[in-house]
């Protein structure tokens, strides 16, 4: 593969992410990885449901009393928006518009950082209430499920940033297009998981 080959929007392939064999391999491999991730989160969700509200006798925390729905709703909106902005970024990637892609990725990253900041604030708040990691089975299951998602967000952000910096000078080619594409795919996956967290942990927690 020639990294110096210059593309124009006309010569740019329709599906740059799968234009090479490596791209195709990464594409399939990444979907398989997401399958494994799905099973991982399924296990975490199942455990959470089994341990929800369980603690030492007399534990004061319950999911209906603890969670701050307005904050979490704001976080949900922010993350959903960031998924949308990453769609724009990939749209511009497919049109070989590097600058626009970088700009939209930048917005995505900003939104992600805000999300992560709010999550840290949220956790910090609960810990101050006395709901620490070692408080109960409930707290362990909660922080592990939501925290694993948070770690994914952190990884996704680092991935975007590394790609943006690494390629800032050289633009798009069929070598890095799959990387951008997959990072965005990963971001969507994180978003979907969050939708489930919002529903299962927070909404169902509030009504129970």
């Amino acid at each position, binding site marked *: *593969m020639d*990294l110096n080959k210059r593309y124009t929007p006309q010569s740019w392939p329709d599906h740059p992410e799968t234009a090479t*064999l490596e791209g*195709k*391999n990464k594409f*399939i*491999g990444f979907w*398989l*990885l997401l*399958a*494994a*991730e799905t*099973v*991982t989160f399924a*296990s*975490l969700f199942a*455990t959470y449901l*089994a*341990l929800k509200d*369980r*603690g*030492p006798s007399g*534990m004061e925390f319950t999911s209906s009393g603890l969670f701050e729905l307005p904050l979490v709703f704001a976080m949900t909106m922010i993350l959903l928006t960031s998924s949308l902005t990453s769609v724009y970024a990939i749209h511009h990637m497919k049109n070989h518009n590097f600058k626009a892609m970088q700009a939209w990725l930048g917005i995505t990253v900003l939104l992600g950082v805000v999300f992560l900041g709010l999550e840290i604030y949220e956790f910090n708040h609960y810990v101050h209430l006395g709901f620490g*990691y*070692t408080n*109960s*089975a*409930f*707290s*362990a*299951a909660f922080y*592990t499920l939501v925290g694993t998602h948070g770690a994914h967000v952190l990884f996704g952000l680092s*991935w975007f940033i*590394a790609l943006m910096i*690494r390629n800032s000078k050289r633009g798009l080619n069929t*070598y890095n297009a799959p*990387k951008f594409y997959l990072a965005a795919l990963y971001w969507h996956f994180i978003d979907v998981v969050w939708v489930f967290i919002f529903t299962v942990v927070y909404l169902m927690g509030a009504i129970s």
Partner: protein
Amino acid sequence: MSSLAQKKGVGAIIWDYLTTVDHKKIAILYLISGGIFFLIGGLEAMLIRIQLMKAGNDFLSAGLYNEMITMHGTTMIFLAAMPILLGFMNAVMPLQIGARDVAFPFLNSLGFWLFFFGGIFLNLSWFMGGAPDAGWTNYASLALASESHGIDFYALGLTISGFGTLIGGINFLVTIINMRAPGMTYMRMPLFTWTTFVASALILLAFPPLTVGLFFMIFDRMFGANFFVVEMGGNTIIWEHLFWIFGHPEVYILILPAFGIFSEIFAIFSRKRLFGYTALVFATILIGFYGFMVWAHHMFTVGLGPTANAVFALATMIIAVPTGIKIFNWLLTIWGGSIKFTVPMVYAVAFIPSFVAGGVTGVMQAIAPLDYQLHDSYFIVAHFHYVIVGGVVLAILAGVHLYWPKMFGTMLSEKLGMVTFWFFFIGFHLTFFIQHFLGLLGMPRRVYTFGADQGWDLFNAISSAGALLMAIGVIVLLVNVVITTVKNVRVGNDPWEDGRTLEWAIPSPPPFYNFAQTPLVRGLDTYWIEKMEGNKKGMVYAEPLGDIHMPNGSIIPFIMSFGMFVASFGALYFQDDSKPWTLAVLIIGLAILFGSMLVRSLKDDLGFHITKEELMEDLKKGGNTDGSK
């Protein structure tokens, strides 16, 4: 960049293997390290059998005995059987589908090194304050009460090596999906490739639950979480579910590739097309599918209730159907074939009754009310050794003989091979057949000794004698390997003379680019078809001779795995107040891991080309250079 072989020193060879991304060399690494772990696990088994040789023995203390059975089981499953099978997959599968390499050579190497460091980490527990002692199933109620760091070694070690296995599984799946040579449709894939495919899919979906369970265990023991701590609202049954949601598919991850190896052997040495190829393929898929729906048969006595037990009992019995289909297909493959009783074939024939016996006891255990009697007795021990030794280990031994020439270019002695076989086969049945009756007489598993008045002396003594025979068999195999390597008589492309699939159409060992020209596949058992049509080259080509693109070697997988290894020590001692350095070690290890990951993703690595001229030069010399620099 030229890359054809020169003579080189020991240091260069070691460096070559540390950095290699060639699937054939990674296969050798898997085989050697898996083999060493197999010997360690075997030694542990011998010590167990010495302890149980007579009533009231005090050869091993009760505590040491628990460590011994735990490490034996864990080592054999995770560090011996699975890696050796992954080794065969690496050695053979890409050749069978006519590929030059796997889809992700770099990840292939990473997968190996993670397994390797995970295994070393686990075994270091022997020297660093005690091995795990809660059984290979590591039930949480036992594990949380265990005082040494053994369980921590177990949880962290298996996490590391589990990541390696998962990466390996994804890599094989993508390789099979994307890298097949032209004409190699799914329904022309050799059965070993098919079983690799399904076993990899099982790895993909079964390892995450185990990893999650292990993380819970790590958090509970090292960071004060309460997943399994009942007083704090936890639930120990969660561990059992997660473990067995992984654990039952795991036994199929082991047995399916074994089925694959035997399928190849039956066809080759009966000199006949596999009977019912399509049925075999679908039975494989079906077994993989059902494999996920039966895990609770390990938990009949937990008290999940009659409905759950009935459902899981039925599902379990259904699995025996596709397994039976396979047995009949193999029998009908032999039927009317012109059979050659080589060492691999003898193993294959011996496998059938042995494995069927294990399947029958499996179905007995699937009857939930009966399982209340059998559970946790020696009957269970007999069952799973019949399927694992009578199935998986026989396949590994058969595979070693079958593929040795392809991997190393020399032929193991058939005579010594037969000696190994008879010692091992007789020893195996002697050891485990009688354990069925020990179980029925009431002897519980995982108990370090028994009384002279319980009537179990004679059967235990016989069982221990059998283990000795198996050990002799394995030692003869090692002698065989040494003699063969020293003699170094080189063999040609198709040393068994009846090879049917593409790996036998190229030199032994193959050149590092595998196929100078990508083959065109014209049917099932392509090489056989070409041979029958008198094609001297053994292949038709899908492309003219041209430049070949190859990946660069890299030390990064090794460093990344080492980083995880270091970080694990930090986590392990995290709760010890006497060790203030743990956090620093944890952070340094993770920094090594993520730092090298970053380097990998920022540095362009486009590989290199072998030019057509170099290729022609190489082909003139016989075309089996190993390509190291």
